[in-house]
Each structure stands twice: as structure tokens, then as C-alpha cells.
């Protein structure tokens, strides 16, 4: 483990995680297709996992909380995506479109 510490500083991983997270946020906000929004959400979740694991390895290697957290995140992401795609499918059949911009009947 020491080699990891010496060669790649923690900040790299944090920056990586932040960049991935920001790209994910941008994707969520700017994509019109619902499936692409979900993909961006996945990207955000993975970014968070990277962050957790990096902290776990670098600061408390014998305390596996971060790694366990990442395992939970992956599991829940999988479940959530299944559910979300089912909803998107339903909406598509109902409204005829997967564009989130056009699903705005619950407005003023």
C-alpha cells in the first residue's frame, strides 16, 4: 500500500471524482432523453464511489467503511436503474415521448 501512497497523491482521486461528478451533474441537467439522464446519474454514483474508496485506502486502510459503502452504492444503483428504466418505459408508452422536456403537465 505504501507505493500507492508515494506515487499517486490522494488529491488526484478527489479531482477525478469531482470531474466525473460534475460531468454527471451536467448530464442530468442538460440531457433531454430520460435514459441519458439515468446514465448521467450512474456516472454521479460512480464518481461518489471512487471518492469513498480513495479516502478509505488512503486514510484508513484497515477500516473498510469506504469500500463497503462503494459496494452498497453499486447494489443500490443497479436496483434503482432497473426501477427507473421501468418507469421510463411506462412514461414512453403513456406520452409517446422520452423527452423530459415534454412531460410537464403538472405545472401552473
Amino acid at each position: 500500500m505504501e507505493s500507492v501512497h508515494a506515487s499517486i497523491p490522494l488529491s488526484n482521486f478527489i479531482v477525478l471524482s469531482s470531474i466525473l461528478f460534475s460531468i454527471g451533474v451536467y448530464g442530468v441537467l442538460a440531457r433531454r432523453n430520460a435514459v441519458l439522464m439515468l446514465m448521467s446519474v450512474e456516472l454521479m454514483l460512480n464518481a461518489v464511489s471512487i471518492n469513498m474508496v480513495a479516502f478509505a485506502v488512503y486514510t484508513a486502510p484497515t477500516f473498510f467503511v469506504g469500500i463497503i459503502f462503494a459496494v452498497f452504492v453499486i447494489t443500490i444503483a443497479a436496483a434503482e436503474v432497473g426501477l427507473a428504466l421501468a418507469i421510463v418505459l411506462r412514461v414512453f408508452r403513456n406520452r409517446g415521448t422520452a423527452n423530459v422536456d415534454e412531460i410537464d403537465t403538472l405545472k401552473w
Partner: protein
Amino acid sequence: MGDAWVLPALPIAGFVVLLLFSPWLPRKGDWLAIGLMALAFVLVLVIGRDVQNAIGDGNFHGVARSWQWSNIPGALEIRMGTFVDQITLVMLFVVTLVATMMMVYSTSYMHGDRRYGWFFAIVSLFVASMLTLVLADNLLLLYFAWELVGLCSMLLIGYYNDKQSAAEAAKKAFITTRVGDVGLLIGIIILFTQTHTFNIQQILHMAEAGDINSKWLTGAAICMFAGACGKSAQFPLHVWLPDAMEGPTPVSALIHAATMVVAGVYLVARMLPLFEVVNGMPELITVIGLITTLGAALIGLTQRDIKRVVAYSTLNSLGLMMVALGSGAVGAAMLYLFVHAFFKASLFLASGSVIHATEEQEVDKLGGLWSKMPITAPVFVIGAAAMAGLIPLSGFWAKDEILAGLYHGPIDHAALVLVLISLPITALYMTRVVLLTFFGEPKDHHVFEHAHESPPAMTAPIAILAVLTVVGGFVIFEGVGKALGFHSGWLGFVYNAAEGPEQFKVVWWLSIFSVVSVGASILAGAWIWGGAAEPSKRAAAFSPFFYRMSLNRFYVDELYQLIIDKVVLASGRAVAWFDRAIVNDSGVNGTGEATGYLGFLAKYSQTGKIPNYALGIVVGVVVIAIVAFGYRT
């Protein structure tokens, strides 16, 4: 004397019973009211006997009895109760006697009226409040009774509640006396803050001893005198009394002649030791009294309604009583109050008898009634003569005593001169109304044919009052006083030994002057208004300005209406505008609408588009991150 509280309790019981049950009582319960009033009168005589025994040689300072009413230790300890002294006794006698006479009279005058039972109920309430007023030993109880008396007066003036003019008159009476009552209340409060007591005797002792700050005392005295002016219809609060003639005539006799209007005189007489300590107060009282008496006398010369003439004569008398009090002549003022109750009540009741018989009030339609009304006419003439001050009727002795009081008193003799001028004017207008009503050719034959004497229930009380008018003045003599059981004549009765004159001293030249001027004036009146009344028409044509001023009551009512319209109602409109435009429209409605508008604008944030909401979440998270964690660097 300690049980004097029973006196108001009797008519109060009558009021309650009549108010609740009168429709089901036989004759609507008038016998109950009259019975209680007669019982009260008998009790007054009993109290009088007690006072006689207590006076002894003439050092009687009144008997008080009180009960704890409120007790907040250190802050507010009020006792309510009764205080009986000579002045109280005079008032009690007058009130109960005239009330009994008036109630008997009303059984006939008000017979068959729709609100007969209610009439007797309210008159009983009135007498109860008046008795409480004169018995009160503290200013707070006096004020309660004062207001209650005003209320009953208003209710009774507006008795004919289907007449617009009666309602207006009742409103005017109440509001005008209210203006004075505010002054009275302020005066009472000022005195309380300075002396920490409401008890009248204690306040008077403190005032005489000089324990009260003189500026506050002056303010309190002026305010209390304003209250007396309102109730006793002194200038400038006199305007309600002539209009109060809208009420039934027995009401006018009781309330606006004999009892309520003298409540102000009673107040001034009671608080006189306090008023005399204040610089300039006696002069103020005298001036107001003079304006009232002279103004009323001049107005009475031209009025056409018989009740109005008697009303202005009441104003005349009230002004005279105030002038007497201004000179400190309490005995004279109380004597005048005593005899005035009799002759004024008899004048009113007799004019009521005339109205009852002829259904007419204007002297333009009356005339020659002497032959048709053999009891009413002499009663009225006796009353008028007493009012004018014809010797040996009671009015003469009382006026003479007032003149003597003015002569010996501290006020400048200009006041005496003005009163001497007012005497013949008084005689003149009383002669006028007597001649125009009872003598000469009847001016309306239909009315004359219809006229008849009134039933005994009406003529008996006025006859009794006429007898009292004739003999009432003789109490001023020591011999008469001793014969009645008192230790001295009137003055010795009213004043204690150390305080004032005991004997009735005659100022000869004043008495002779007044007799001569009154006699001459009566003869002049007979010449002016006798026969076809040519000289009166010439006089009216000679000076239309004075005639119009007198006929229109010096335009005081019009002036007040102008002030009400231009000042009171105008400022009311301004305040109403402020309330409507600023408080309501801008404030209450405005803030509501503004909030609604903001909500209207806010709804556009609900676009329904998920990316918008997502953006909102992201921005929120960033803001929280900066605010919560950004300070740590």
C-alpha cells in the same frame, strides 16, 4: 338618617317591578309607582324630623353612612354611602313631593297612552337616581346617578317615539349634557388624583385647608362647573332645555323644572366651599348665570309656544340660582330652588292642563280661557305671579333673598344691577303669556268652544302646588320656622350657627325697588298685550332686528349646528376617509393583494419540467455547501 338609603330603594323596586310586569298589573301598575313615591315622601318627613332633632341649636354638619365598595389596599379604597344634611333634606323634600304630584297628574294626562306602564317605570327610575344623586356622599356615586338621571331624561323626552322631533330633541339633550358630563368626570378624576378620595366631605375639608394644588384645583373646579352648566342648562349648554319640551308635560314639570335641572345647582351648592377657594370661580359662576338669565328673559318675550315660554322661564330661574351661588348665598339659592320647584311645576302642569283641554300649544290660538278653566287659570296666574316676583308670593321672598345676597356678597354690584334689570323683563314676559292665554278675545273660536276644565286627577295636584307657591316663601321667617318645629327660619336652617346669616335681613330699598319695578312691568305688560295687543305689534315692527334675535333665540342653535356641520362632521369625514383609503384599502386589503400578487408571480416557478427542478436541487446543494462548509478554508 342612617337609613336614608331606603329612599332610592323604593322607586328602584317600583322601576324593576313595573318594567317587568306592568302589562299584567291592573291599571299597568301606576298605583304601585304612586304608592312608593308617597311612601318615600313620608320617609322624607321622618328624616326631616330626625334632622330637626339633630340640629338642636344649629350646629349640624350632616350624617354620613357608607359601605365598602372596593378595596385594593393602598391603591383604591372606595366607600359608597349616603350623606344627609340640610341641603340634602331640601332636595329630598322637593323631589319626592313634586314627583308624587306629577305622578298623580300623569294618571289623567297620560291616560290610555300606549306606553303608559313604561312611563311610570322610567319616572320611578328617574326619581331613584335623583334621590341617589342628592344623597351621595362621594363623587363617584354622584356621577353614576348623574348619568342615570340624564339617561332617564333622554328616554322621557323621546317618549313619543314615533315623532322625529322628539327623537331629535332627546338626542340633543343627551349630547349637550354629555359635553358637560365629560367635564364633570375630568374634574372628579383630577380631584381624586390630588386627594386620593372620592368622598365629598373629605375633599371639601382638604380644599378649605389649602391642601390641594391650586392649579389642579382650578382645573377641577372649572371642569365640574362645566358639568353643572350642562345639567342645569346654563349658557352655552342651554340649548337642550327648550327642545326638551317635546316630552310629555308631566316630564317637563318634574325633570326640567323641579328636579334634574337643579342637579347642577345642587352640585355647585354642595361643592361651593371648593369653588370659593379658587380665584375667579365665583365671578365665572356669576357671569354665566347672568348671561343665562338675561338671555332667557329676552327670548321669552317673543316665544309662541306656551311650554317654550315656561321653559325659558326655567332657564331664567336657573341662571338666577347660579348667580346667587356665585355670591356664596347658598341659603338664598336653596330657598329659590325650593319655591321654584313648586311654582314652576305648577306652571308646567297647568300649561299641560291647557294643552290637554285645547289640544293647542301656540298662544296665537289661545285666549280668553279664564272663564273656561276655573282651576287651571288661577293656578297658572299664581305661578306666573310668583315667577315674576309679586309680593307676598313665594317667588318674591326668594328673589329678595337673592338680591340681598348679591348686595352683601363679594361680587361687584354690576351683577346686582343686571339682575335688577332682569326682574322687570321676567315680569313682562310672564304677563304676556298669561294675558295671551287666559284673557282677551279667543283667537281661535273652535279651540275656545272645545276647551274644558281638566279632570280632578289633574287639577288637584296643581291646586296643591299653587297653595305651596303662595305660602312656601314664608318659611323664611323665624316664626314660621319655629312653628314648623325647626329652631329658626330658613336661613338659620340652611346655615350652621357659625357660618352664615341666621336672620332674614331685609335690604329695604332693594325690596321696594323690586316690588315697584315688577308692578310697573306687569302694568306695562297689560298695556302692551292687553286687548288687541297693538303696542306689541308696534314694538315688533319698531325694531325687527331685536324681535328676530329674540324669536330665533339669538341664533345659538344655528351656530351650534354650523359648528357641528363644519367642524365635527367635516373632521369625521376626514377621519372616515383616512380609515377607508389608508387603513382599509391600502393597509388591510393592500397587503392582502400584494401577498396574492407575489404568490401569483411565484407560481411560474412550477414549470413541471424535471430538469428545472433538478437545477433547483443542484443550486440548493451548492449554496448549502458554501454557507455551511465554505467558511472553513
